[in-house]
């Protein structure tokens, strides 16, 4: 696909808090770059990137859409991501494969919770980013206040490259601190026309001061540029841009631009900044190769990295899967090599071969057939047999596995059952496909009730899944009330020995296992270790012990919730030459788990949410009192003009239906966001309630 040299490609994402203007900005970008001939609006439901029916109906982005455009003879592949926390997985996997990102910050509220969450994710993947302070036309917008929240909440060195000219409905344009000129947008033609002029008199002093800061900060990252500065008392614009790019890629500082996408001002300089300051695939260090299981990452800071090179052996990462009427589309970011339709590659994660059929370059829901992809490209492959999100596709000559992706923990369960018996198969197939697309969605069958349980990131997430099941797979379901995804764990170590013995006539069963159960830190998972010596449990039966406990751990001993964060070590056992079998050891392991857990101080864990309520001053007392009644722990309160932001940790169980209560309590003037924070043990009385319900 790449007819352009790699240095002219930008793979970027646009991300922010919900409603900060990501999709609106993307629409302007597509218009100014000539991809679309009219501007779609979120509130009209006709945007290019929000192409799903639900996205258009609800006015939110649900999936990350990929679009491609050209600007100044460069190709920009853009991924527009959702802002709602329930769809965080989309942001996660997009950031994982991008070389750079635009972070949009709202000009009124500044940095909001989801901006913080996405920022931390981008930190995890070392994504170079530029910041766009948007909505400066809004009442209450304040560039400098929004700018201050960057330092306060993200603790970064933010570097303004522009200052606003006017604010709110008087917002006219920006001062470009690199060129030291004013850019003024003209009315009409949807913001496509703008001109340069001298900096307005009243902004000259502020512009000079900020230019000095820009020079000091940017030039300091490049010692040659410093010498040029000492020599000439200034640097050329070319040198300054080079320094800003280097500082942006290394994360020394984060450039800040501003405007209002909705009023069509500020988007073209943002595109220039993408070209000038965000990296091409060859400007970044390359993707790391995965460490072997159990190897500590901190011990290997310099892991082998694969640099973008079309002539190298092929390596790509499948980062997204969607199913539509034409089949399964697998989105792949190509890191190295070149691949043609008809080639065969290895899925090195699952160790099997995949034949490459048709390939497409995606423009939201439209596609353009291509016959070749190479390093730096993002493309969709059709017809891969068994490739999931996070899998590596690589050349058989050099079968590397790329760094794995981390997925968030689902916190809400619902039970689903089809309305008719005939639809059971269709529902299972549909849910399996949806779960294949979305790694933050888990599917399991309750062993006791036989119900299908869907686990997701929030009520909205699961609601959309059920809606998609109805629209795309024509399955109507009855759904249970959302349930908290409780977990069980243990609080102390215990050693349990269990003997499974059935030797009365015919072929018998005999197995004895001695297992140490130990608690692990939160998110430690379930870890198995084999410490059997002297063959007291024959090697061929050890996988059966491991499997038995892992399977049984899905049903905890207190209330049937999955048991997590513990280690089990097989230390001893006994076998019988004739009566022992893998099945006997599996049965023994399951029973050993049930008995052992009861003596290892079992406890129930509940998800605790990080809740942020934005309320007018006069309702703060009501909001705080109500959060306390919901077992919330207030973390802090912060005034911002006439509103107060209350942050608290509240158990998810207490947050169901909170939005309607909050609205009635504050006459609809308060809003809130929440996201998963951690798991905590539930108080005794609540644990008793949960156990009584499950009995």
């Amino acid at each position, binding site marked *: 696909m790449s007819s352009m040299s790699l240095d002219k490609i930008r793979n970027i994402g646009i991300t922010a808090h919900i409603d900060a203007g990501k999709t609106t900005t993307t629409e302007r970008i597509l218009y100014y770059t000539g991809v679309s001939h009219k501007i779609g609006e979120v509130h009209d439901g006709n945007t290019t990137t929000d192409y799903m029916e639900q996205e258009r109906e609800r006015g939110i982005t649900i999936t990350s859409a990929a679009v491609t455009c050209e600007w100044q003879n460069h190709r920009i592949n853009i991924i527009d991501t959702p802002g709602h926390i329930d769809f965080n997985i989309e942001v996660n996997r997009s950031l994982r494969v991008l070389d750079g990102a635009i972070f949009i910050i709202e000009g009124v509220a500044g940095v909001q919770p989801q901006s913080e969450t996405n920022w931390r994710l981008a930190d995890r993947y070392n994504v170079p980013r530029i910041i766009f302070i948007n909505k400066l036309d809004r009442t209450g917008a304040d560039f400098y206040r929004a700018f201050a929240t960057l330092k306060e909440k993200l603790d970064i060195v933010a570097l303004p490259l522009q200052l606003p000219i006017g604010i709110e409905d008087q917002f006219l344009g920006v001062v470009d601190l690199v060129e030291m000129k004013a850019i003024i947008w003209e009315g009409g033609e949807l913001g496509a026309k703008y001109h340069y002029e001298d900096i307005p008199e009243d902004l000259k002093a502020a512009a000079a001061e900020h230019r000095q800061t820009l020079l*000091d900060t940017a030039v*300091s990252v490049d010692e040659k540029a410093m010498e040029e500065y000492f*020599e000439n008392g200034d640097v050329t614009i070319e040198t300054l841009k080079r320094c800003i790019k280097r500082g942006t890629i290394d994360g020394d500082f984060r450039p800040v631009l501003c405007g209002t996408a909705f009023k069509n001002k500020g988007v073209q300089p943002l595109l220039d900044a993408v070209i000038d300051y965000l990296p091409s695939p060859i400007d970044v260090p390359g993707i790391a190769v995965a460490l072997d299981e159990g190897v500590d990452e901190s011990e290997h800071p310099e892991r082998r990295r694969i640099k973008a090179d079309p002539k190298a052996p092929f390596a790509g990462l499948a980062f997204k899967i969607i199913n539509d009427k034409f089949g399964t589309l697998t989105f792949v970011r190509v890191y190295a090599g070149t691949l043609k339709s008809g080639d065969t590659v290895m899925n090195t994660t699952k160790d099997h071969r995949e034949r490459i059929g048709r390939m497409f370059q995606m423009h939201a829901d439209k596609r353009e057939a291509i016959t070749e992809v190479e390093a730096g490209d993002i493309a969709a492959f059709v017809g891969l047999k068994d490739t999931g999100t996070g899998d590596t596709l690589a050349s058989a000559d050099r079968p590397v596995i790329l760094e794995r992706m981390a997925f968030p923990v689902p916190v809400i369960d619902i039970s689903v059952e089809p309305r008719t018996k005939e639809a059971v198969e269709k529902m299972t197939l549909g849910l399996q496909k949806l779960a294949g697309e979305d790694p933050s969605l888990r599917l399991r069958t309750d062993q006791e009730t036989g119900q299908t349980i869907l686990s997701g990131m929030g009520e909205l997430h699961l609601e959309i899944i059920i809606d998609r099941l109805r629209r795309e797979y024509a399955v109507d379901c009855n759904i249970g009330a959302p349930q908290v995804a409780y977990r069980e764990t243990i609080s102390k170590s215990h050693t349990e020995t269990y003997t499974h013995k059935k030797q009365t006539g015919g072929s018998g069963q005999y197995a004895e296992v001695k297992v140490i159960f130990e608690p692990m830190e939160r998110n430690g998972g379930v870890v198995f270790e084999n410490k059997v010596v002297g063959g007291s449990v024959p090697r061929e039966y050890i996988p059966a012990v491991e499997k038995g406990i892992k399977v049984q751990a899905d049903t905890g001993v207190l209330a049937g919730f999955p048991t997590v964060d513990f280690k089990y070590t097989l230390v001893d056992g006994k076998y019988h030459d004739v009566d022992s079998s893998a099945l006997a050891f599996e049965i023994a392991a399951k029973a050993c788990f049930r008995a052992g857990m009861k003596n290892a101080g079992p406890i129930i864990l509940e998800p605790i949410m990080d809740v942020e309520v934005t309320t007018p001053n006069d309702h703060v007392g009501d909001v705080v009192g109500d959060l306390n009644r919901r077992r919330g722990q207030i973390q802090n309160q912060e005034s911002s003009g006439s509103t107060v932001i209350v942050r608290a940790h509240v158990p998810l169980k207490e947050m169901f239906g909170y939005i309607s209560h909050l609205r009635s309590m504050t006459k609809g003037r308060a809003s809130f966001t929440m996201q998963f924070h951690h798991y905590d043990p539930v108080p005794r009385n609540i644990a008793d309630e949960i156990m009584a319900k499950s009995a």
Partner: protein
Amino acid sequence: MGIGSRLNWMRGRQEEGAGVTPRTLEWIGLNDAGEPIARVVRVQGPLLTGWRRFSAVARDAEAKVVDLRPSEPPDGAGWLACLGGQVVGRAALPLQAVRAVEARLGQP
């Protein structure tokens, strides 16, 4: 006014060591006679001596005299502006420290 109009600045010592990307540790300000009269020095560290952690600053051009500072630089102000043997300011960025030296030179 360009910075170079008051002092002529040149690179001083470079960081050394295996696996280290060479960074400039100090910038030296020369007067019109070519005499070094000012220095802008990077605070290095943390260094471990025995069981204590220090930040360190070379107080002379050859780094024969090293000043150990027990705390991390406040607000990331990792550059010291020195005029003669005296510290006249500190800053997060070398150019800001250079400006501090220039400003001090301009004072009566």
